[in-house]
């Protein structure tokens, strides 16, 4: 790209620092893979937790979900999955929605949904852990 002679005052360094048109560079690309690898590691314990809960009533389920190790694994999984899905659906929106305002609205709605889901789950896990 250094060979182009168009009239720009911007140096290659400043272009790199501005991290492209999205202004966030490859941050989301990297975090999507980071959270993916996290979930590859967490999926087996997570499936085991769900299996442990099968056939139990609320008291039994609450006791298991509130125990420290299980609560921590569930928290990590919730955070990784909500972050991953926020990025993933944003990519889908950016791919298919070309009306600028609608795109912005959908990206916002996606962010709200992902944060709400994460926070609701985190709240429930903390409540189960404190035994209230």
């Amino acid at each position: 790209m250094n060979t182009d002679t168009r009239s720009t005052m911007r140096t290659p360094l400043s272009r790199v620092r501005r991290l492209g048109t999205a202004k966030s560079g490859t941050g989301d690309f990297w975090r999507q893979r980071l959270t993916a690898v996290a979930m590859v590691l967490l999926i087996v314990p997570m499936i085991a937790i769900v299996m442990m809960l099968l056939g139990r009533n609320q008291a039994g389920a609450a006791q298991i979900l509130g125990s420290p190790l299980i609560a921590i694994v569930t928290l990590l999984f919730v955070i990784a999955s909500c972050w991953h899905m926020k990025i993933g659906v944003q990519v889908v929106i950016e791919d298919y929605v070309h009306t600028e305002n609608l795109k912005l609205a959908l990206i916002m709605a996606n962010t709200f949904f992902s944060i709400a889901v994460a926070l609701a789950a985190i709240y429930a896990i903390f409540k189960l852990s404190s035994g209230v």
Partner: protein
Amino acid sequence: MPARIDRPLSPHLQTYRMTLTMALSVVHRATGLALYAGTLLLVWWLIAAASGPAAYAQLQAFAGSWIGRLILFGYTWALLFHLLSGIRYLIWDLTYGFEAREREWLTRAALIGSIVLTILLWVLVYAMGGGR
């Protein structure tokens, strides 16, 4: 109207002969979107456990109904397919597995593996008495 820049265009999807890798790329996205909606089940489950016996009984009644089981079965497959297919993308991100036979093999493995694992998991669930 700002002057449009003549950017190179890539041909549309229908130009290409449909291949398994192409089809499963679409399925990867579709399962991602399904799992996005499916997080509502995860949150419902955690909040119900944190809320009390009545709320948890409601969740169990839904999960035990035929429509609930169908959704959970679909959710299991979507999760496992997205997982295995995602591992395939992580391998490709590391620039491995791009030979024709390798990429076909990886793609088939993700599809068949997810179906086999889903059935095995559900056999296990029923064997443990969780399907009552």
